[in-house]
């Protein structure tokens, strides 16, 4: 240590003057390992260059990837929305600029209002269902009982299997004539009419939402359970001593303590649900008669079924705008809540 100090004290005067500006800069001591004396300043400079270089080396591939696969698509999509794409565009390479024509076309299309309402209903319904059931299960699993851990990890399965698998399985379960659900409902005389879950315009969105809730429950349980585990036991004991009922303990201890986790779950939920595609395409393909069409699925249909990539892009941009709008509203509301 002493040697070290000695070195850094003598360094500025001891080193040969080479480029006054460099020499006079006070060398922020420790970086160079002790014992390697010679021209310290240059060493420090080259050390810094090497650090910069290392940072670049390590970080640049990821930055390039993120720019290419997230940045580029957003910019490209933004531009595509102003262009006229058709089935021949990909042979001729011609996609003339048409200003706001695509936006005008998608917004005035009869599907748009339906898709917008469906997106909101689907997102709000899915989140509400997942969250309420997820929270109830998380509270339940907080009790100590045998096999608790095993049951909780099995619960993850619906979330880990591919979404399109869930779609295929539910499609058969919800089948109008031979599906397991209708057979169960008929056998128990709850509903004997064999409702067409996926084929009726009034039920399709509900069915798709139900399946999406089923898929989302495990995530909600896991995160909320983690949040519950972090609430100190003493708070509950104190509440019990004060004579708080079960509901009061939940209302005045659990809920306020859980709030940060709740916002994480809800925000992530909205961000992910708003762009759901696999589930809807697998179950109903947006039908019947657009009854379960959302903005995301409609964007897919425009681009990849009708090969109107311009309109698909416009709708995709509207979806991003809705996401951003939600994020801003959320951040504002959150700040207000914090201020209070």
């Amino acid at each position, binding site marked *: 240590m002493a040697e070290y100090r000695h070195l850094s004290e003598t360094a500025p005067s001891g080193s040969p003057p080479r480029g006054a500006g460099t020499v006079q800069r006070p060398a922020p001591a420790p970086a160079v390992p002790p014992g390697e004396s010679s021209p310290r300043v240059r060493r420090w400079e080259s050390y810094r260059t090497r*650090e910069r270089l*290392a*940072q670049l*080396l*390590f*970080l640049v*591939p*990821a930055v390039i990837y993120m720019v290419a*696969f997230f940045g*580029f*698509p*957003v910019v*490209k*999509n933004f531009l595509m929305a102003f262009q006229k794409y058709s089935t021949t565009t*990909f042979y001729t390479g011609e996609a003339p600029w048409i200003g706001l024509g695509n936006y005008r076309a998608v917004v005035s299309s009869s599907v748009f209002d339906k898709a917008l309402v469906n997106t909101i209903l689907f997102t709000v319904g899915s989140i509400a269902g997942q969250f309420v059931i997820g929270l109830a299960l998380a509270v*339940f*699993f907080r*009790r100590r*009982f*045998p*096999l*608790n851990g095993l*049951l909780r*990890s*099995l*619960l993850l*399965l619906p*979330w*880990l*299997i*591919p979404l*399109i*698998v869930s*779609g295929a*399985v539910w*499609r*058969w*379960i919800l089948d109008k004539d*031979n599906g397991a659900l209708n057979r169960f409902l008929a056998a128990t005389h709850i509903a004997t009419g064999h409702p067409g879950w996926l084929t009726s315009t009034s039920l399709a969105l509900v069915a798709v939402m139900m399946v999406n809730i*089923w898929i989302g429950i495990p*995530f909600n349980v*896991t995160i909320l359970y*983690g949040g519950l585990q972090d609430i100190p036991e003493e708070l509950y004991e104190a509440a019990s001593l004060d004579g708080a009922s079960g509901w009061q303990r939940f209302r005045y201890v659990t809920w306020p303590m859980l709030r940060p*986790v709740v916002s994480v*779950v809800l925000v992530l939920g909205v961000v992910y649900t*708003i*762009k759901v*595609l*696999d589930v809807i*395409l*697998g179950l109903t393909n947006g039908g019947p008669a657009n009854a379960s069409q959302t903005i995301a699925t409609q964007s*897919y249909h425009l681009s990849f079924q009708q090969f109107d*990539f311009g309109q*698909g*892009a416009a709708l*995709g941009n509207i*979806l*991003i705008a809705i*996401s*951003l709008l939600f994020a801003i509203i959320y951040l504002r509301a959150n700040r207000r809540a914090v201020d209070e």
Partner: protein
Amino acid sequence: MSTVSALPGHRRHTGPGWGNTVVGIVILAVLLFPLYWMINVSLQPSGSAVGTPWLPLHLSFHGYSTAIGQQGRNLATSLIVALGSVVFSLLIAAPAAYALAQLKVRFANVVLFAILISQMIPGIVIANALYTAYNDLGLLNSIPGLILADSTAGIPFAILIVRAFMTNIPQSVIEAGRVDGAGHVRAFISIVLPMSRNALITAALFTFLFAWADFLFALTLTTTENVRPVTLGLYTYIGTYVNDWSSVMATAVLASIPAIVLLVVAQRYVAAGTTSGAVK
């Protein structure tokens, strides 16, 4: 710690614990019924479109032989794409995680914020733009094309959870490894990576699952049967009128195997990944 329930044997006498276990099993049975149904139907003899029995009493592997015959190639494609995505994602994400965790990058916060924001970008927007770019670059219907696109799920996730782990490695440990003149690369490979084993395994498992489960890019970035992941194979199965649900469900079971294996074999890593999902 409540003193009453801490008494040994307390539960066994009164049995409230097992009561909850029963409730838990009932809840699980309801929630996992669709998965039971998938397995049940997959084991039924062919053509049982009308009224599948509630139990697979007449076991038949017809569904599986059809599924493997028709989807075997697609399963192999999925496997190659998923493994490729794991390798590619970790190659990109692990160094970046190290830089963000330990190298005092000036714009680290900007990069992290960009990663979080990237999660808001809908897959369909990415697919839309990639289709045109892939068309120009000749990457449509190619395994590398799918690997690159599928990694959009794995790379941000891997960077976040590996970084979170690497910030906990003491600077002194890494510095110690660099005293002998070893550069960042050596320190990274010989010290940081081995120490981050668990985080890397978790990242690898989830990256595999993400790529294996990918449907959107399979749907949009392939147009022929040459390169077709099993998720798309399943979708084309159910896209038309289905008269042989046991083959469809057998395919569904085969497509679920990675998830099931991971849950059984690597449960603690899965648990680690799901909780860090909150960071994402």
